[in-house]
């Protein structure tokens, strides 16, 4: 008893059969383009992630686009002050779908060391966050692990059907 894919594979050997979701997610997760949103010390670690030793480019995140229109991943790297918060929201709104947010560092995730009048206590008060990365600053390996986790999350996405665990980002 042969399955459909085997029959098709034998009958038409030049045709690749897969799920549409799998193909779209594979394309999206392998070419995440981060928007440069380095604010403070975590920005320097983010720059260190792109250098020759910890190469983020091998995960597809080669180009850091300055314009939010051309980016699909916003890595909020650093502390967000109350003066910067509206700017952050505006840049997030200017990004086109599908878009993801990684909150890098303790300050972006929860206010960090600074529990005071000037810092927003967690960037998830302003934008929806997909992956939080702890650390002050997180090691480059930590940020790479976050990108890998985000790739796993994107794999579970669905363009066609709304699934219970992952709302569609379409």
């Amino acid at each position, binding site marked *: 008893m042969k399955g459909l894919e085997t029959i098709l594979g034998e009958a038409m050997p030049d045709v690749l059969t897969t799920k549409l979701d799998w193909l779209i997610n594979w394309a999206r997760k392998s070419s995440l383009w981060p928007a440069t949103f380095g604010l403070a010390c975590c920005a320097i670690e983010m720059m260190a992630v792109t250098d020759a030793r910890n190469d983020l480019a091998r995960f597809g995140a080669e180009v850091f686009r300055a314009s939010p229109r051309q980016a699909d991943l916003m890595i909020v790297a650093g502390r967000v002050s109350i003066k*910067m918060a509206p700017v952050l929201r505006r840049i997030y709104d200017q990004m086109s779908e599908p878009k993801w947010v990684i909150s890098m560092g303790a300050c972006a995730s929860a206010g960090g060391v600074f529990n005071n009048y000037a810092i927003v206590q967690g960037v998830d008060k302003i934008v929806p966050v997909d992956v939080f990365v702890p650390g002050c600053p997180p090691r480059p390996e930590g940020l790479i692990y976050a990108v890998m986790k985000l790739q796993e999350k994107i794999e579970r996405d669905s363009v066609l059907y709304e699934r219970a665990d992952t709302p569609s980002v379409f």
Partner: protein
Amino acid sequence: MVSTKEIVVPTTSVTTLGKRDPLGDQRMTISLGPQHPSTHGVLRVEVELDGEVVVAARPDIGYLHTGMEKTMENQKWQQVVTITCRMDYLNSMGNDLGYVLAVEKLLGVEATPRTQVLRVLLTELNRLSSHLVWWGTHVMDIGAMSPFFYSFDQREKILDLFECVSGARFHQSYFRIGGLMADIPNTFLPLLKEFMAGFLDFLQMGKRLVTGNKIFQTRTKGIGVISGEDALNWGLSGPSLRASGVPWDIRKTEPYTGYEKYDFEVPIERDGDVWARYLVRMREMEESYKIIQQAIDRLPSGPIQSDHPKLKLPERDLMKEHIDVMIHHFLIAAEGFTVPIGEVYFPIESARGELGYYIVSDGKEKPWRVRVKAPSFLNLQVLPKLAEGMLLADLIGIIGSIDIVLGDIDR
């Protein structure tokens, strides 16, 4: 070759086709930042443009204001070291050093010889790593992509050294009031010597790649000029001031932690443009290398903690036998020590300029006021004067050359 100074912008803009430019002599105000790849942080500059020529550039800061001075008033004296690291995040140990020396001046404590040499060694390593980031990013702003990767490769080696010593790549909080966090491990000096062996070759390569590059020189000579006298009035300090001919380096004029015993020069240039500031910092890297070499050679053995009863935790064996020693240990560890009433201003030479700590103590275990005079704050204030009449692309080079760090400015 036409230098930017010779460009004359006509008041009635007539294009080469002979038609009137619809913009005429209107000015265009654009906002550079706060999210921008080349502003070295969240800096916003309101630029008024006449075509491509900058007529006025007004910096707008505060996008990274963290309320650090207020937070420091709520921390114990020893805990403040964790906050000062995060101000000028490229020169963390330099910031810590200024704070620690200021409080030691208030307490009347002098660090041990071994601590002094280690502090000099690590501060100069930090200065090197800060200048490496400056070099990589400044040259990337001007247009060259590859030096960024070379400089960050060297920087990774320095960060390995910091991790070896304190456990953290950045924000080490390694300097403490009275001494250091702990003595250096055995693996530190061999690793440091390995790094030193390869660094001079890297500097040579950097000179061949960038300093000798004709395009780079053309883009940076004559841009953003400021004279020494103007610079002093505007409060410029550090390498940017030394590039305008003023030979002021606090490590030479008001030495601290034993800097007077080291043999190093202070590089000075006369022209005051972006090229001069570039050359000063490149030579400063060589001088820092010399200082580190001398520090390795003269590292004495001995204790790292100074012998002040408020700062030194007593020996554990004594503590387990005598109750008064136990009380002493408990008070230091639980409550923290108190610092006598008074005020002190302590300036040091950070990688960016004069970093001053003005500390007011009210005799309690938390500081009453810690005011940090940040060098980048005053260095940025000069930007409108430097940018007048320059092209927009030159403005980016100028911002890179004054080497600002927004964490320092906004605190």
